[in-house]
């Protein structure tokens, strides 16, 4: 068991972080807002952690103090939240595809800025970000509780007034408005909650990946997170979490498949080099054949009935 955790520590932590990022996209989607801005806030949070920890290194040769990581996460969350309100108030008047496009533009603008500013290290990025844990699996002590807390938060959110207002907005904005639910207020709130989570995850990821550059917050990343949510299921918070966990593990599973003996060499080579082709095909097939995603509220309620 110990060797399993050592070998797959990186993968397990990546899976947990991906699941949290999927939740950050799910939160605005709860209120019916398709926002692809998460990678922008993720990159921002990462840069905050990377700059703070490399400019002010910890004294001595010891591990990076944990309290400073937590402080960076707090700061990254705050900064992302403030930026989200500033961007969200004007942008969330847009609907559907227009909002998606505006958030794509937001992510691209942040990317170009981080490529060119001195503080972000330009195209090279920031290297040698100090490690608060001696092994990569150690990051699960931070990433795991964060994911569990966010899941608990979202689970509760779906059952209180604010969450119900989100769902009302998703189902029919006009009707919700006429019932006294302020669309702008709740939309910005949903957007900001997602942004805060993405920023916090970014702060952890910067330490986890040890290096941070402009490639972290790109359009490709937006698409992966969107795939997590839509393939996992966008109607319950379990969907994005499952989507994030499974789809992050998938390339590794495909890689493991190439080692199976008795496979024709060309197929082995295709599985190794063409992993992303299969990944893309799965996204397309998922969207066409499982439009609700793998985990639907219907499925969850059936599971609940099965239990005595």
């Amino acid at each position, binding site marked *: 068991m110990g060797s399993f955790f050592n070998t797959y520590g990186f993968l397990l932590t990546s899976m947990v972080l991906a699941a949290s990022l999927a939740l950050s996209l799910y939160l605005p989607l709860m209120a019916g807002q398709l926002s692809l801005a998460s990678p922008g806030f993720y990159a921002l949070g990462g840069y905050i952690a990377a700059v703070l920890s490399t400019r002010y290194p910890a004294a001595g040769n010891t591990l990076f103090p944990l309290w400073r990581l937590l402080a960076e996460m707090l700061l990254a969350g705050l900064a992302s939240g403030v930026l989200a309100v500033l961007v969200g108030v004007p942008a969330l008047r847009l609907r559907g595809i227009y909002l998606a496009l505006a958030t794509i533009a937001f992510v691209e*603008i942040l990317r170009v800025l981080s490529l060119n500013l001195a503080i972000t290290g330009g195209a090279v990025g920031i290297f040698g970000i100090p490690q608060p844990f001696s092994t990569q699996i150690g990051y699960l002590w931070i990433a795991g509780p964060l994911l569990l807390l966010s899941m608990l938060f979202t689970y509760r959110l779906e059952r209180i007034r604010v969450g119900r207002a989100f769902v009302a907005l998703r189902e029919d904005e006009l009707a919700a408005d006429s019932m006294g639910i302020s669309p702008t207020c709740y939309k910005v709130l949903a957007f900001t909650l997602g942004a805060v989570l993405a920023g916090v995850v970014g702060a952890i990821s910067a330490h986890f990946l040890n290096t941070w550059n402009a490639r972290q917050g790109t359009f490709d990343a937006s698409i992966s997170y969107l795939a997590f949510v839509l393939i996992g299921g966008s109607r319950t918070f379990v969907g994005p979490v499952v989507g994030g966990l499974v789809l992050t593990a998938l390339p590794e599973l495909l890689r493991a498949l190439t080692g199976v003996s008795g496979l024709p060499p060309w197929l082995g080579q295709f599985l190794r080099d063409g992993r992303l082709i299969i990944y893309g095909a799965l996204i397309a097939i998922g969207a066409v054949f499982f439009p609700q995603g793998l985990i639907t509220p219907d499925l969850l309620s059936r599971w609940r009935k099965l239990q005595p």
Partner: protein
Amino acid sequence: MNLFLQQILNGLAIGSLYAIFALGYTLVFSILRVINFTHGALFALGAYATYLLTGSAVNPSGVLASLFSAFFGKPALPLALPFLVSLVLGACVAGLAGMLVERIAFKPLRDRGADPLLALVSSLGVSIVLVNLMQYLVGTEIYPFPDTVLGNLPRAINFGVPGKPVPVRTVQIVMFVVSMILVVLLTYFINATKTGKALRAVAEDTTTAYLLGINTDRLILLTFFLSGFLGGVAGTLVGLSVGINGPYFGIAYGLKGLAVIVLGGLGDIPGAVVGGFALGLAEAFVPAHYVAYKDAVAFALLFIVLLTRPQGLLGRAAVQKV
């Protein structure tokens, strides 16, 4: 003054390219009200197809090189078509791929009446497949078109008086001329032919058009062919100008194309042309000191236009119906 003129000419050349690329996007949007995210991939596909048809060699890092070597004895197709012929055929390859994309990513969802946002995801999935398939086949290296591809044309042509030269690269003139021919042909096709009229009817209201006896399914296929064709031409022209910079280079243009169609108003055909030129000129006038920020211009414009005039520069505000 000369510099100013040169910037304008540069802006017009790249703007015309943005225009035809964005036309491909906006044609599909005007009919289906969805964004076809494979457009950037088709752009790269058209460029590679043209490159191969001119008989140029592929790099050994892709699978295609060994396949070609096995069958033809060299890492290239056993033909060397003239550039313009290859351009048209290569664009047709992209167009046919566009029709395939329609059948795989759009039709099943449309038949079921699914959420249009799902088509965005399915087309993204197909786009990831296409881009990585190309990478698998040809590798990631830059493929510059050979210098001889345009025949004996000089590298640059002087647009100023002999004492004060305003040199413009021949490639940019080719870019502008080819794009303008396509814009004119497309405008004629849409406004003056019966099929074009049917296309406009489908864009206005698919159901009514269908009830009036228009074969909407075939017209949608045609739209995807035209869209892919335009994307393929744009890809080839960019490849001709700066080289085919890996299968992923289409994605960056794909995102810029989004900015162009929003500038012009989503689904607005003249708007896409105006938006293309607006972006090309805006980028040409970014001061040399801030040239690293040039790529942000498109997205800053996109953001500002969305917030102030979401209907686009030319469009009128749509009334939200309940």
